[in-house]
């Protein structure tokens, strides 16, 4: 049974999973979920993910949700092929896990709020940004990016001098932020963050991921 990813091409979480599969050289089928029609809240999808979200990953052994759990599974199951994503030692692994958590706890909340306010909100509901929410999250994101700038001055990638799951988790929201928020200077004004973004976003896996779907 081939690998199936249930999701939509524009979904950041779906893109994370696609990128991981491409990094590991795993063939898969993207099964589009008609979210505009509310398919993700219907019983058929809720059987796959009771939280009614995308993506869902399915292979002959498992049905999984939560993109970071999925990418971790892909990185482990396919450890022997494609790009190593988890580090080679327990120490390297600890640093990968640490920066995966940093993304989930610190980077993601700020950047996803900004992407919602500055890009997705208008698309989904026609509404402009809540300026107060933008201001709060710009401040948070700047504080986080200062830390990233210092880290990436000392280290080529987040967990060390190797690309890992930690960096991969930053692809999807950073892409939208840099291309569509109107505030890409937060990234580009920080030389080491900018260089890191330039490096990781040039990876074939990411270039391929953003070609999925019509827009």
């Amino acid at each position: 049974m081939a690998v199936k990813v249930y999701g939509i091409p524009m979904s950041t979480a779906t893109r994370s999973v696609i990128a991981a599969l491409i990094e590991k050289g795993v063939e898969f089928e993207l099964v589009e979920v008609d979210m505009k029609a509310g398919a993700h809240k219907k019983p058929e999808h809720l059987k796959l993910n009771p939280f009614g979200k995308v993506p869902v990953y399915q292979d002959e052994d498992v049905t999984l949700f939560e993109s970071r759990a999925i990418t971790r599974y892909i990185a482990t199951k396919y450890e022997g092929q494609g790009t190593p994503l988890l580090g080679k030692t327990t120490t390297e692994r600890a640093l990968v896990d640490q920066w995966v958590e940093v993304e989930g706890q610190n980077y993601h909340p700020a950047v996803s709020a900004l992407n919602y306010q500055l890009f997705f909100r208008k698309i989904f509901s026609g509404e402009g940004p809540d300026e107060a929410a933008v201001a709060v999250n710009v401040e948070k994101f700047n504080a986080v990016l200062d830390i990233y700038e210092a880290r990436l001055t000392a280290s080529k990638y987040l967990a060390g001098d190797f690309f890992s799951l930690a960096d991969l988790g930053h692809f999807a929201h950073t892409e939208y932020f840099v291309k569509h928020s109107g505030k890409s200077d937060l990234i580009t004004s920080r030389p080491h963050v900018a260089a890191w973004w330039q490096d990781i976003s040039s990876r074939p896996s990411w270039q391929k991921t953003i070609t999925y779907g019509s827009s």
Partner: protein
Amino acid sequence: MGLTVHGDICSPFVKIAAMTIYEKNEDFELVFARLSLLKTEEFLAKNPFGRMPVLEDGDLVVFESRAVARYVEAKFEGQGTPLMPANLKEQALVNIWAEVESQSFCPPVWAICSQFLSKKVPDVSVIEASREKLEKVLDIYEIQLSKRKYLAGDFFSLADLFHIPLLHILQCLSEDIFRSVINSRTYVHKWHQDITNRPSWKRIISVPEASDWSFLPKV
């Protein structure tokens, strides 16, 4: 030379590190760090985010409590409680529910607790909005836990452990909210009773400092 944990045992996140270490039948030296110390240059060199816990093991410094827990489990694999299964499928289930904790459970619980910890008069609208989110999440937990004893299966794992300290602080700060979201759900309640009965957890909350947040400044 053993493990060092920098932090204050009243922090739910320090408790995650502590409980994981105890579950592996290991111990650690707690280097006390209270809020004011987290912004010193010395501490920021260890964790630039200025938060607790920080784990030190020889030259290795790890922050983010869930990453600390994963490291401890990997380092002491084969002793104490297995907190992460060897089987890939079961591992994935643990990681799913660890992510649910991180992304869907922790934020509303912490939002509620923050209201009680740092404000003189809790903002009722914030509490209610967070509580509504939490209830929806716990409805799914209730169905999950009606089918199996623990979140990832019939085995205790890191996914369950990650929830314990946050449930504890919520209960201490608002018994009312805790009862209405946890005790009202048969299987969630049963699960909570089971996981908080573990000797590693009882050891942590046996010290009064573990449940004392009175030193925090009121805004």
